[in-house]
């Protein structure tokens, strides 16, 4: 629609790192400040989370999980973004950020208990600085902004990462939160994982506009980048987080990627998605691409690649073993245990009655 759109912001440290097409420039790539070990770690993490993702799908197919939502194809975003943050920075995910949580150190087996129907939120967000998964689309974005407002009020130096999908940008909550972030100049990095689909709805039916360009309307910069380049994502999130940490406020990163799997294990994408799209995106696979680059740079060799694959395999098997061995928490605790900090008497009475009815049966 718009013939020419140019947004240039003086306090925008990201713009210079990327070509207009959203590719990390060679120059920026050479100044990332990551040593060989760190570069290998990015690769390792991508391989680990992809293997775990695959194992979760297997578990779902075998009836061990009720549901699984693959993030296949989005590993560069998960790993690049998380690596760019400090451990004290908070993450407010939606529901597809399993890989991010793994990189943060949350036990994937524990996480899977959510999809096994055992828990609505298996980890303590305060321990990992990682909020619970948010299933109602976009509703977590105001939480991220509120948290970031709090960081500013406490004069902390944490930064908040708020992630969401392309579909999420259509929700009212998304807009309100973006606007709050601008008004209160909160230290938050908004990261849209634009994987082109919201279940069966393609981006072209989700919006006629541009997601990245919306930032302008809220008073902060936005950029659209290649989400299948782990170094590009790393560079963008690191720069945006730095900027936020320095008090320069929010930044919106639209990382363009593709949902290679189904929406979830309940979905059948053949009903709405042309196979040809998958082929095109397969060629841009974030792991293969990065491995080729690492090899070309002499940072990784076949032996390391194989060792990492083995490690991923055993980690996946260990995850499976831990998951299937996990005990089922007692019903009274699972249903009533975490509702209130200060439970009303009538609530405690109901719990007691419930528990004694179980003993009876």
């Amino acid at each position, binding site marked *: 629609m718009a013939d020419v759109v140019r947004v240039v912001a003086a306090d925008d440290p990201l713009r210079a790192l990327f070509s207009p097409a959203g590719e990390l420039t060679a120059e920026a790539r050479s100044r990332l400040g990551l040593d060989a070990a760190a570069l290998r770690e990015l690769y390792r993490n991508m391989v680990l989370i992809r293997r775990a993702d695959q194992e979760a799908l297997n578990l779902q197919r075998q009836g061990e999980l*009720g*549901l699984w939502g693959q993030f296949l194809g989005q590993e560069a975003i998960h790993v690049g973004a998380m690596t760019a943050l400090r451990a004290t920075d908070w993450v407010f995910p939606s529901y597809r950020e399993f890989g991010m949580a793994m990189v943060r150190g949350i036990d994937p087996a524990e996480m899977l208990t*959510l*999809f*096994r*129907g*055992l*828990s*609505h939120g298996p980890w303590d967000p305060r321990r990992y600085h990682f909020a619970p998964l948010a*299933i*109602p*689309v*976009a509703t977590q974005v105001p939480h991220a902004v509120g948290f970031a407002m709090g960081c500013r009020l406490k004069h902390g130096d944490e930064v908040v990462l708020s992630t969401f999908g392309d*579909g*999420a940008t*259509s*929700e*009212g*909550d998304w807009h309100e939160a973006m606007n709050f972030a601008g008004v209160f100049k909160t230290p938050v990095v908004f990261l849209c994982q634009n994987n082109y689909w*919201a*279940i*069966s*709805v393609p981006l072209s*039916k*989700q*919006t006629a506009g541009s997601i990245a360009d919306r930032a302008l309307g809220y008073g902060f910069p936005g950029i659209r980048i290649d989400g299948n380049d782990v170094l590009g994502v790393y560079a963008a999130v690191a720069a945006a987080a730095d900027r936020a940490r320095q008090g320069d406020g929010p930044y919106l990163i639209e990382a363009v990627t593709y949902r290679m799997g189904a929406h979830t294990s*309940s*979905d059948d994408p053949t*009903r*709405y998605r042309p196979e040809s799209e998958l082929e095109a995106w397969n060629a841009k696979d974030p792991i293969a691409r990065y491995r080729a680059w690492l090899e070309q740079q002499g940072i990784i060799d076949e032996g390391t690649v194989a060792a990492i694959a083995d490690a991923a395999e055993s980690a996946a098997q260990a995850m499976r073993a831990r998951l299937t061995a996990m005990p*089922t928490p007692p*019903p009274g605790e*699972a*249903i*009533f245990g975490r*509702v209130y900090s200060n439970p009303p008497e*009538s*609530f405690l009475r*109901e719990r007691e009655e*419930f528990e004694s009815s*179980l003993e009876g*049966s």
Partner: protein
Amino acid sequence: MEPVTMAKAINLSLRDALTRDENVLIFGEDVGALGGVFRITDGLQKAFGEERVFDTPLAESSIVGIAVGLALRGFKPVPEIQFDGFIYPAFEQIVSHVAKYRNRSGVPLPITIRVPFGGHIGAVEHHSESPEAYFAHTAGLKVVTPSTPADAYALLQAAIDDPDPVIFFEPKARYYLKEEIDTAARVPIGKARVAQEGSGVTVIAYGPTVSIALQAAKTAAAEKISLEVIDLRSLSPLDMDTVMASVRKTHRAVVVHEAPVFCGFGAEVAARISHDAFDLLEAPVARLGGLNAPYPPARYEKLYLPDVDRILQAADAALAYG
């Protein structure tokens, strides 16, 4: 006609509505090419085109909001909300506009909002809610829910034909119940149904709990206890005539739904029976429902929701009372 599932019956009902009235429009998230996450709208876009059956952006408040505008323009919008737990972003539009727009404008609002609801499907959080009481308490709305394929077909026809806004709750755990349906039969909004005749205790259910009430009746019958099962079908308006006719016979009532009991729809039913049948009742009206806690992880839903045993216990208690 072949027996059809409730899912198919709703699909047929939508199809017939689209055929009968060119002002009927179907829209929502994933209702087009995908045919909805439950395939309720399967094939409709293909048959009626992208102008009449269309996907929207992911925004429930506006899905309902545009329905108001479309209704003003002369359409009969039938938006879908994908799951019970995702109707809340549309609450403002429903409560402040859908329910009240006619009252401030005189313009009829023939909107039918379809909402799969209830639990027992082993889902993750927010996919098993029973929010019917919120809407039943909202003056200006009609709230209905079928429990059988035949009623689903006919009640949806009635909802779409109704010139007033209707919240149409679909008991998603019953989508695969099968029976023959008669597409000529009518089920008016506001009429309950005696799903099972009996004489000992009246069990009042709706939507997903009707089948467990019927199961309870069957089990009870084996022990020579006779339960009469009322399927409310319409929560607002509520058919107290049918309820009272039953209570006049049984003098005892149990009401059962999936939503938490506290301030749930059962409170209205129980309060009404206790009031209107004050001199008839031989036992307090029992209310069964979800526990007064958020819907639990799937592994615990069976324990959280009312079941056949709890209905039988309540019926026994009612019979033993005094």
